[in-house]
């Protein structure tokens, strides 16, 4: 039994520059999948390759066992919601949404029915005769979404769908997207550089860097068990301490920190990954340092403590326990919570 | 580079061929030895010599330079002030349309209007009336270019200057002017070339004793086919090309239209 969508050994170069490097990925039906990574990591190229807007140099893409690459872009059961929305300014909202159905040559009644229905779903039926320039940002985004899903694609691709919206509308739209995905029963593949967005919305995330998938996992897995230092750094707040493994401890800047069992050989270079919320303050600890500053975030406060490492250590702390700036803090944690990653 | 174009190569290179074929013929014939207009007899540069020793052409050239320089100066001052005024002090679509109209107004209508004005004022036609007339449409082009540039510049720069205690005029000279300098240079060069080549308005508003170069060319072209014209065309092409290339460095063509 093969996956709903399988990407095998995909490669794409722009001249000397590698955009996608021998990439393989499997995505399940009805999954809300996020391609996450910094800009230039190849995630958008991959998305465009799925839509057929970009040719590939090598590899295969199969959708339900059907070769997708052999289909021209306008025949693929894959629709894309563009980052700029790409609403046709000379057409009305209705005409924009109906555009794709008309290209299929469907009967007029069916077009009208499906278009109206999807406009109702995104609550834009009243605006159907407006021109896109008369809509707000959130409304435009919903038209773009309606235009893509009205085609009932097997896969809906979303290119940074929320980046142009302000924060409040964005969180509303996140909910909306999830609801829609659930209702429509379509596989969503979302491209974003915003790890918070990916974590909050996706079932699974593929984190990409320099044309390669670094880790594919659920948001929780990725947070808890980053596979590499890059993942650990990209996902969430983290303390990354570079040092060397000895027989029983981890040496960082001349200080010895306790570690749990590790497969990494003694004497090798490694990174100790410590989430700020895993560290506790006490009267004694593994290391001590002076509190430099504290940033208040509502529910919690992030402390910055100078322990003599090459970076300040971040510690999450509840509001009523925040020490005065300048006091010496003692830090401790459960060594089993900390992850040790090879630093190669 | 060309492979991506496919069949579009045909119109692109076709259009260029269409645009340059007559010019190539003129340049070629400017080195013709005899004055037979359509027959090549041998290489010679004599027509260039005759050209620069022709008093009509030299006078015409001098008059044209005077007009182009003076009209450009007036146009840059008026056009820049107007562009700044429209961008910063009085945003009005109607005023803006009026300010830009001379640039696209039919030259013949403009020319006869000006002729009518000058005659009714009993104003003797001469280089000054051509300068006044040329400055009119040149200023519109300067306004358009400077206005475009001001669109790209944050008006908060001037507000910051005002906030720091500068007067409006002071802010104009210390902040606005330096930031629109490329547009000013491009506008000035465009004005200069437009005036250099302008025929219809000059034809109507010029006095009898001060023909500009295009007017001299007009009478030459009408009086038959002289190889001096070919030599002149070659020189005019080189000069214009030079000016345009300099202007290009200051402002890309695409921003102008």
């Amino acid at each position, binding site marked *: 039994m093969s996956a709903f969508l399988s990407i095998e050994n995909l490669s794409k170069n722009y001249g000397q520059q590698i955009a996608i490097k021998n990439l393989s990925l499997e995505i399940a039906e009805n999954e809300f999948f996020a391609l996450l990574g910094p800009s230039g990591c190849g995630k958008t190229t991959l998305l465009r390759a799925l839509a057929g807007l970009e040719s590939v140099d090598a590899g295969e893409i199969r959708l339900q066992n059907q070769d997708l690459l052999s289909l021209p872009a306008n025949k693929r059961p894959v629709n894309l919601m563009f980052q700029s929305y790409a609403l046709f300014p000379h057409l009305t909202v209705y005409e924009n949404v109906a555009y794709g159905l008309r290209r299929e040559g469907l009967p007029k009644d069916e077009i009208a029915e499906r278009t109206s229905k999807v406009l109702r779903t995104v609550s834009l039926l009243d605006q159907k005769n407006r021109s896109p320039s008369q809509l707000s940002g959130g409304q435009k985004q919903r038209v773009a979404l309606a235009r893509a899903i009205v085609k009932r694609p097997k896969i809906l691709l979303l290119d940074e769908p929320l980046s142009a919206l302000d924060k409040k509308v964005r969180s509303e739209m996140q909910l909306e997207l999830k609801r829609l995905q659930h209702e429509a029963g379509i596989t969503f593949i979302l491209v974003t550089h915003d790890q918070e967005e990916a974590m909050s919305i996706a079932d699974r995330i593929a984190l990409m860097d320099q044309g390669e998938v670094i880790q594919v996992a659920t948001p929780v897995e990725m947070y808890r068990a980053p596979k590499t230092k890059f993942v650990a750094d990209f996902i969430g707040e983290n303390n990354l301490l570079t040092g060397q493994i000895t027989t029983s401890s981890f040496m960082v800047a001349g200080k010895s920190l306790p570690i749990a069992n590790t497969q990494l050989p003694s004497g090798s270079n490694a990174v100790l990954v410590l989430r700020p919320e895993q560290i506790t303050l006490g009267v004694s600890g593994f290391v001590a340092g002076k509190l430099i500053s504290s940033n208040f975030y509502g529910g919690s406060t992030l402390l910055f403590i100078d322990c003599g490492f090459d970076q300040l250590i971040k510690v999450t702390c509840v509001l009523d326990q925040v020490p005065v700036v300048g006091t010496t803090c003692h830090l401790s944690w459960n060594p089993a919570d900390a992850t040790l990653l090879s630093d190669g | 580079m060309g492979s991506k174009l496919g069949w579009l190569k045909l119109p692109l290179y076709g259009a260029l061929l269409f645009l340059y074929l007559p010019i190539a013929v003129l340049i070629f014939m400017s080195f013709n030895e005899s004055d037979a207009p359509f027959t090549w007899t041998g290489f010679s540069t004599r027509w260039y010599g005759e050209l620069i020793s022709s008093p*009509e052409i030299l006078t015409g050239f001098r008059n044209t330079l005077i007009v182009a320089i003076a009209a450009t100066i007036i146009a840059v001052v008026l056009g820049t002030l107007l562009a700044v005024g429209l961008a910063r002090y009085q945003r009005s679509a109607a005023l803006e349309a009026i300010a830009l109209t001379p640039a696209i107004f039919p030259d013949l209508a403009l020319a006869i209007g000006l002729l009518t004005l000058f005659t009714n004022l009993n104003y*003797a036609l001469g280089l000054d009336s051509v300068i006044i007339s040329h400055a009119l449409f040149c200023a519109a082009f300067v306004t358009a270019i400077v206005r475009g540039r001001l669109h790209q510049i944050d008006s908060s720069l001037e507000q910051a200057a005002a906030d720091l205690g500068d007067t409006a005029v002071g802010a104009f000279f210390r902040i606005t002017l330096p930031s629109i300098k490329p547009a000013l240079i491009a506008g000035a060069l465009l004005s200069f070339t437009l005036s250099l080549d302008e025929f219809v308005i000059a034809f109507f508003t010029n006095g009898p*004793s*001060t023909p500009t170069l295009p007017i001299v060319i007009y009478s030459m072209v009408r009086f038959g086919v002289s190889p001096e014209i070919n030599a002149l065309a070659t020189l005019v092409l080189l000069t214009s090309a030079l000016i345009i290339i300099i202007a290009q460095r200051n402002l890309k063509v695409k921003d102008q239209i």
Partner: protein
Amino acid sequence: MRMTRKVTVSSFAALLLFGLSACSGSDSDSSALDPNADLSKQTLTVSIWAAYYPEDIAAKFEEKYGTKVTITNHATNEEVMAKLTAGGDSGIDVAFVSGQFAQALAAQGLLENLDKSLIPNSSNLIKEAEQLSYDQGAKYSLPYAWGTTGICYRSDLMKGDEPTSWNDLLTPKPKYKGKITMLATERWLMLPAQKALGYSANTQDETEMGKVKDLLIKAKANLLAYDDTTFYERLVSGEAVMVEAWDGWCNYGIAKNKNIKFIVPKEGSDLWADTMVVLKTSKNKEAAHAFLNYIYDVDVHSWVVDNILYKVPNKAAMAKSLPALVGDFPNMGISPAELLQQEGLVDLGKASSLYTRIATEVTSK
């Protein structure tokens, strides 16, 4: 001729712009000229057809009289007329125009009556040329050159078909179709048809002009172009075989190709004169008269004959130049008496708009 006091809208302009009212200039006769005026203090602007005068004339005149001269060119009578009649001071002191245009200018009171005592060389004027219909007695104009209009053709390319009639030009054999040009200026545009139909070249009769129009429209189908300036070059290159031409300009073609010939069609033709006038608005009238006198100098005027290849109504100049030229350019030998047999062109007054309209109809059809 009825005198029309021209009203300008200058007062309207002044009112609009400055809230002032302006007075129009007076039409009173000019004050007497000073024969001892210092000409070096005066400057002259002379408007003349391009390539119709010695190129160094300005320099030579300045050398002799100390007057700075600016020569300005016009391509057609109409061009300089527009400037002279626009109202106000055109800046032109001396203008070269065709006779009927001089008549129109005089009718508007724009011309200075010539003081012959300041033009002693005018004694060279051929007496027949004093009686030209547009200015009997040469009161306000002094003819510069004169001649007639005919057909200029390539005898080698029209062997056996040499034209003798205006009809040969207007309704040519099919093989000459598209190899013919006619003059574009209104009066000469009309001339071949007027003469072919046996009418006067100055006719103001609307029925006659209607027939002229029909004939010209028919003739248009055979034309290469209407051409006032480069017709002789078209003959030289072979682009055209037969053109309507002024006698003098045909000579430019003859100079380049001996196969080019000129004939005056048997139906007759016009007598035209290009004449020199002094503008009333001129502030340099003494210098203007001196310039006319200078032109009538034997050497200067014979230069015109030798180089421009036009006949001039100057006895001494023609006597000096003609013998050497008449062999190569037979039409230079047309005598003043023969010229006077042709019809002199006069101004048409109000009827000029009829001519304009017909010219527009013909050229736009």
